[in-house]
């Protein structure tokens, strides 16, 4: 983009600013993802040892992160410590659970693995979407450059509308691709797996408290449905012989059958 002329400078600046913001967001997301996965895995390991843990354990607070970043002298030591902790957690995950809490531990490990997979795929999808936004900015730059001089972009609104157009165009290219469909489906499947694993763990806790679970409710719903269908079958045979009009009248207005 021609930055020498005053005419295009504000657009070039705007695009550069957007790129900078995207890069920053991307870095922050990666950091969140890393910290989140680590604390979740640690929570799962605690639970595996029969200690209570918060399944939705939040990553360290920003304040704490800022503090630790400021302690630059400790950075390399901290990195080594983190690496060691990750390795140790991974080692623990590989050891088959035994003893009284074996089943429980396994359920929590599966939950932790499902969470890690989900987080990994979320990161991958976010990467793709960031690429789309960057490509949209490239396209915007090109479209601005190729625009006829009699149609100037003389306001933010025009630039914004053009950016939306470029964004949709770039996104459509990705969205229709097989690779993206696959990635999105993988993430969908992983989050459903995570939900399933979470439900297993929750149901285990509910059973301890003698509270009804979703699985039990499902059994009941299925049974009620089967009974209803059987009942309809039994009652519909003689009714089918009656004129249809009378049949419809049998359903009182506003009342459930």
């Amino acid at each position, binding site marked *: 983009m021609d930055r020498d002329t005053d005419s295009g400078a*504000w657009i070039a600046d705007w695009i550069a600013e957007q790129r900078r913001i995207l890069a920053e967001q991307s870095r922050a997301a990666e950091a969140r993802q890393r910290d989140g996965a680590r604390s979740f895995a640690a929570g799962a390991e605690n639970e595996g040892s029969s200690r209570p843990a918060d399944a939705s354990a939040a990553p360290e607070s920003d304040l704490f992160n800022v503090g630790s970043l400021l302690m630059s002298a400790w950075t390399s030591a901290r990195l080594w410590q983190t690496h060691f902790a990750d390795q140790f957690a991974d080692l623990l995950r590989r050891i088959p659970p035994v003893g009284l809490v074996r089943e429980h531990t396994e359920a929590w490990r599966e939950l932790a693995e499902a969470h890690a997979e989900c987080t990994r795929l979320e990161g991958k999808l976010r990467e793709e979407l960031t690429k789309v936004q960057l490509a949209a900015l490239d396209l915007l730059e090109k479209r601005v450059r190729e625009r006829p001089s009699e149609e100037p972009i003389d306001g933010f609104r025009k630039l914004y509308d053009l950016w939306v157009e470029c964004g*949709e165009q770039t*996104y459509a290219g990705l*969205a229709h691709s097989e690779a993206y469909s696959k990635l999105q489906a993988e993430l969908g*499947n992983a989050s459903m797996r995570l939900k*399933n694993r979470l439900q297993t763990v929750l149901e285990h806790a509910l059973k301890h408290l003698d509270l009804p679970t*979703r699985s039990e409710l499902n059994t009941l719903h299925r049974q009620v449905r089967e009974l209803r269908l059987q009942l309809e079958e039994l009652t519909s045979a003689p009714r089918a012989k009656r004129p249809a009009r009378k049949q419809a009248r049998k*359903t009182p207005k506003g009342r459930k059958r």
Partner: protein
Amino acid sequence: MSSTIDHDRIARELREFSDRVARGIAALASVGDVTIGGTPKDEVFALDKLRVYRYRPLDLLPGVRRVRVPVLICYALVNRPYMMDLQPDRSLIRRLLERGVDVYLIDWGYPDGADRYLEVSDYVLRYLPRCVEAVCAASNAEKINLLGVCQGGTLSLCYAALEPRRIRNLITMVAPVDFHTPENLLTKWSKHIDLEQFAAATGNVPGEMLNALFLALMPFRLMSQKYVDLMDHIEDLSALENFLRMEKWIFDSPDQPGEMFRQFMQWFVKENRLALGKLEIDGRPVDLRRITMPVLNVFASQDHLVPPSASRPLARLVGTRDYTEYEFRTGHIGIYVSGSAQREVPERIARWLRERDAPSRRRKR
């Protein structure tokens, strides 16, 4: 680069926009709840969570002759049917009533956990036949006209193919038939989804989840530009209310019964069984060639949810000799609510029905 810069102008633009946002917040705070629909109607049938309503007749437009055979609207399960009667000046139902059409509508309600095992067969072979019977009884008609909208159109096609004797004329509106056309993004996205696991994990599929999916089809426009555009007419109370009504409709999405969703996605979307002639419901083959009644297929040329290529194949699949196609230049939602659609679509439907109307044979008592 040829853009001319006017720093004062840009500063003014930003200032004006911030002022508009501030005024917009005040306008939004004062607008209150918006009312939806309002065309008077009476419940004529109820079964489980579904209701069938009959809309009360309105004064006819001058010179209009009544259509004797009633119309039953079968809407999709994904959204609420009040899109057909959003507000007095954006109501396909009202426009049909003014043109002498006797309108009934199925409201599927909001399924809950107890409905998670409902299947496609429940909708096509249990619910729809009873709704049709109820309309026949209420209107004293032997046959009715069925108007299926979107997914409701697909279900109506299945019903009409399996039970054609009760349908005089069939209208499909933005209804997908062939799910495997290149423009169909939702089909591409669902290709690798593990539906068994999906249904097991979610039970009923949350409406919010589907909404997120629909927004992801055009994220820049639907999640950003739409709201920026709103600022252009934020102080126009009527336009603001229109916008809020539309927002309510878009996000008022019932959950989908889990098993019904799984079967629909697997059979119709992933395997395209309806278009390929391989669909069976409760062991009964759904052969679209059995649809020999007149068919009007209405679709929108700019539809990003149900592209025209998904609706058009109906022409070669149905057995009728009286097939009419009506393509209207708008999008999936615009076909119900846009100004031009309000003027043209109901008129076209009513005229098509009137041309195929017949004395309603009284049913034997």
